[in-house]
């Protein structure tokens, strides 16, 4: 694994994503998702909302890095809140 040049933050990041995916899979087996309409303009399933949340969080982080010199964890908190809102009401 040396060639993959792991660092602690990136390992934590991928562990987080992996846990999220496993958790979502388990959740799907327990209570299968239904496609429904929330505040997003399209009907989505839980998985769709997770994907939209992750993609938009990636973009929000990039915008933050590109336009401000503030520390990164501020936008990370905003993204966590955004993802929770999206999963619940999206």
């Amino acid at each position, binding site marked *: 694994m040396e060639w*993959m*040049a792991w660092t602690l*933050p*990136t390992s934590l990041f991928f562990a987080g994503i992996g846990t999220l995916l496993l958790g979502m899979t388990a959740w799907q087996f327990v209570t*299968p998702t239904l496609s429904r309409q929330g505040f997003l303009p399209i009907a989505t399933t839980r998985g769709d909302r997770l994907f939209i949340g992750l993609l938009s969080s*990636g*973009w929000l982080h*990039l915008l933050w*890095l590109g336009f401000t010199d503030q520390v*990164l964890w501020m936008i990370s908190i905003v993204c966590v809140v955004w993802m929770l809102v999206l999963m619940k009401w999206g």
Partner: protein
Amino acid sequence: MQRTHNNRAWWLVLPVVIVVAFSAIIPMMTVVNYSVQDIFDPSTRFFVGTEWYREILRDERLHDSLIRQFVYSFAVLAIEIPLGIAVALSMPRKGFMVSLCMILLALPLLIPWNVVGTIWQIIGREDIGLYGWALGQLGIDYNYASNPADAWVTVLVMDVWHWTSLVALLCYSGLRAIPDVYYQAARIDRASPWAVFRYIQLPKLKSVLLIGIMLRFMDSFMIYTEPFVLTGGGPGTTTTFLSQTLTQMAIGQFDLGRAAAFSLIYFLIILLVSWLFYTAMTHQDSDDA
């Protein structure tokens, strides 16, 4: 939709997931690891956090390259999509001419990218190339190696020559799939050819056009070989598109950390656009159903 599906068939996807893991996901994770480090080789590396991202996002050279890339991709779409539809509409509907047209249209698609670049490099020359020579005879001062506008025109014409066939063939298959009853109804109503196109053909072509637009956008957004062979990204950097800038950074300068951060930004752009197209397509299907 108020019912759940049996998801057991997903297990059949497992082999693909394993292949994709080794061909895409693990390399991708490595790129993410590289993008937060100043790295020369796995034993010589320093953690720099989001430093590369900040630099890349504020790099003028990359902004220019990104703008060029978008202009190029939109120009390609703006020319190839209407032209492809026009070619498909003017193709014969039956007889041996159909096969002939299909073969002629398919030919450019079979030519490898670097050969296309070489063909246009020669054809655009003023001394021995037909296109360059003809323009010279018309009194047009044309030189794709020194004039940025000429270089752009040549790179665009080359792409149009190479890929309009794809759009035309897709549209042709879409047109052939329209049942004759629609045309009969149009004849009864004495619809004009424009009305037939606007209210029958174009709506029926929507799904193939979406696929065509997506394929052409993705492909032109990743373009590397053809401009690289034709102009080498020049004159100056006027035809240096994103993937060439990335290659210069990764292989030319051996700036792996920065190149990794750049690749991830590039990836996010592609991912966003693909998702938008995918959503548009799947929702159109559910609207039609």
